[in-house]
């Protein structure tokens, strides 16, 4: 039994299982739902075992092919990887449940499962990779499968959104690859840990970092490089939007964090302040645009642009005394936004199905017509704004605390304004639904599984507020360079 548990918790399974699932759904499109559900359950089990193993025994390093760095590729799983794997698994559970009921055409359903399992496998591979070139391949896998998922919606808006997303994504990963080439040219290693031990603050390294950061910022849609995001996230099928906003943009952000923590040769304040300033601009611009949107899904897409801004506020705080608080805050933020935003997109899908449209000012009577969905919408909205006791509240609280402790009060101002704006656009949606306006003709039945999936994710975002302590314990496992980079552990 113990031997089995050890065998199952090997990091490679988290990649192999969904990959096999994806291939099998291609082989048997008629049985795609069955295969997909089985692959989902197995992957959930494997990821749970792996996370538990990391929590108990610490950092896992796994030499694929038995060669080990520098020649081979190592999987590397520390607390940071574990947190992202767990978030992905949580969102994946909701999205898979939702996907069972959402797609009705057989052909689309089959391709949804294939592509979705590809995304999941690629995300897990990305979070587990310890090699900068391997990260490039996983980045391309994530991007290509996400694009194909957007296009599943069909129609002009989705296709143009998907194509722009693809082109932008290719520029982003090409830029990243260029950085990989330069780093390899300078240090002749690809393993992140070995590279981290060698980096020097010279021209090549800074140019490589700039190329990689630029590419990843484009893929994360940091203002002003967010121009592609609303069209893609707004036009995709609802469960796909949930995956894109909840997980995919965080994948490239995760690589940014890894690079920052492990490969930045020395701590210089300028890049952090610049990233923070762009993040602040994203918060304000995205929130204002979200307020102006007519359609719920576009509102949520712009809200994602704004929320991505918060993630980047960690960089100006990362080299101060409050670094540890800030990092915990941003990880809480990733988790709560992943759960809340995917819940919101699933709710938007339900509303779209119920009313046949998702115009924000015509959602009168939604609370009575679709109570479970509406409750989920409210719960997730609470987390998005950052009201207690949700995960979003703890995340913003930690970030504000870190900003105050490091004496950078101006970030607090931005965050509070952002929360106020978020409250405004969330209540714009909720208010109309609560007022018992004209209930427009009921168009479609929303399957209980679809409402349930949204509620599950929204509840997750709320419960997350009580999980800050275990998350911090997990985070500290193998936390890179605590001693070197300042800040008390």
């Amino acid at each position, binding site marked *: 039994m113990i031997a089995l548990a050890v065998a199952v918790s090997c990091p490679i399974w988290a990649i192999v299982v969904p990959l096999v699932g994806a291939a099998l759904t291609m082989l048997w499109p008629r049985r795609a739902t069955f295969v997909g559900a089985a692959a989902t359950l197995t992957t959930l089990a494997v990821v749970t075992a792996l996370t538990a193993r990391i929590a108990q025994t610490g950092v896992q390093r796994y030499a694929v092919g038995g060669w080990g760095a520098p020649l081979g590729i190592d999987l590397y799983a520390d607390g940071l990887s574990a947190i992202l794997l767990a978030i992905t698994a949580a969102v994946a559970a909701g999205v898979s449940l939702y996907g069972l009921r959402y797609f009705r*055409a057989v*052909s689309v359903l089959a391709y949804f499962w294939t592509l979705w399992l590809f995304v999941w496998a690629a995300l897990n591979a990305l979070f587990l990779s310890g090699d900068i070139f391997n990260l490039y391949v996983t980045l391309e896998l994530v991007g290509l499968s996400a694009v194909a998922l957007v296009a599943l919606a*069909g129609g002009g808006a989705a296709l143009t959104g998907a194509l722009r997303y693809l082109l932008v994504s290719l520029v982003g990963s090409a830029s990243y690859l260029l950085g990989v080439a330069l780093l390899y040219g300078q240090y002749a290693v690809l393993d992140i840990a070995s590279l981290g031990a060698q980096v020097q603050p010279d021209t090549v390294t800074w140019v490589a970092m700039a190329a990689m950061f630029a590419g990843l910022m484009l893929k994360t849609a940091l203002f002003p490089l967010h121009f592609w995001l609303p069209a893609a996230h707004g036009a995709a099928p609802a469960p796909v939007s949930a995956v894109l906003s909840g997980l995919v943009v965080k994948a490239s952000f995760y690589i940014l964090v890894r690079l920052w923590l492990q490969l930045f040769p020395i701590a210089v304040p300028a890049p952090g302040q610049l990233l923070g300033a762009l993040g602040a601009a994203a918060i304000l611009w995205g929130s204002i645009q979200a307020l102006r949107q007519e359609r719920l899904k576009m509102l949520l897409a712009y809200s994602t642009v704004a929320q991505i801004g918060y993630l980047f506020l960690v960089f100006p705080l990362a080299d101060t005394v409050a670094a540890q608080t800030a990092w915990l805050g941003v990880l809480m933020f990733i988790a709560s936004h992943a759960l809340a935003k995917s819940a919101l997109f699933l709710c938007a899908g339900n509303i779209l199905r119920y009313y046949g449209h998702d115009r924000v000012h015509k959602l009168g009577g939604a609370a009575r017509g679709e109570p479970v969905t509406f409750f989920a919408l409210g719960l997730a909205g609470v987390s998005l704004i950052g009201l207690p006791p949700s995960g979003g509240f703890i995340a913003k609280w930690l970030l504000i605390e870190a900003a105050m402790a490091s004496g950078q009060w101006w970030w607090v101002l931005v965050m509070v304004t952002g929360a106020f704006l978020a409250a405004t656009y969330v209540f714009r949606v909720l208010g109309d639904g609560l007022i018992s306006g004209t209930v427009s003709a009921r168009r479609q039945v929303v399957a209980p599984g679809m409402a349930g999936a949204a509620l599950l994710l929204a509840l997750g975002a709320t419960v997350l507020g009580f999980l800050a302590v275990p998350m911090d314990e997990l985070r500290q496992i193998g936390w890179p360079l605590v001693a070197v980079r300042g800040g008390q552990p």
Partner: protein
Amino acid sequence: MDALGLVNAAFDLVVIVLLPAVALGAVMSADLFKAIILFITLGLLLALTWVRLAAPDVALAEAAIGSGLMGALLLSARERLARTRPGRDRRTSHYPRWMTHPPPRRSHRAVSPWAASGLVLIAVAGLTAAVVTLPHEAAGLAPEVARQTPQRDLANQVTFVLLDARGYDTLLEIGVLLLAVAAVWSLGEAPEPPQNAAGPMLQGFVGTVGPIMVLVAGYLLWAGTDAPGGAFQAGVMLGALGVLLSLAGRHPLARLPGWALRLAVVSGPMLFLAVGVTMIGLGRHFLEYPQAHAKALILLIEATAMISIGVILVSLYAGGRPLSDESGTRKGRL
């Protein structure tokens, strides 16, 4: 410098200048057809460069994929765009019409050429500074590879890196190929091929060259363990044959039943995965081949991968899921 060195230097200089010149033409020439032809030329020029830089494996891949297949894909896309009439064979969507229509134009404004030039200048300046300051003599991981290769019976170091030391990358790369097919199939059925009758000349050409291409693919696969070549180059050879057959009006995938096509596409990645997992079952790491059987396993993986790659590339060229697909997705409208 001796005479040979001088000739080499002159050759290098010509190629180094020609590359950006041809690239400029490929990107900027007013005629799209000319741009595509120049892009194909650029691919061939790059293949020549790879030979000059002692990378014959990359040269084979570039000539076949980067130049040949990309050229075929671009030309057929151009032809399909030219045939496109808006509104015809429009796909239906499960969203209402007002939502699926593209958003108003003001939502995105093209970047001005001046701003783009500024950005490009900054990028080029930064990269130049980086490239110039790189160490001018560095062996990279070559000594490490040379130290490890003798453990395996593989004289081709690139094959060693691709399938053994960094086999995991290659597995994911075959995953990208599989994913691309899934993406293309998910976008809808393949458009009707153009109706121009293939003359006897092309038919005869395919009849003559086809068997040779299969032979060459097999040779590239077999020799790839010790000489330039390998699964990718061999697979592309098969893919090129498929494209030729399509051009000659004999669509190679149309006659395959749906299940056979899907099996052919999936078998390469699945076998790769299966070998990897079997190693775990033997108490080793994923994809850690036992010493005695490494070469045989690599050849096995490469052989199935070759077939999958060939079929995948032809499917990508077809541009949609095959009309013969009987998987219940036939006539599968959204």
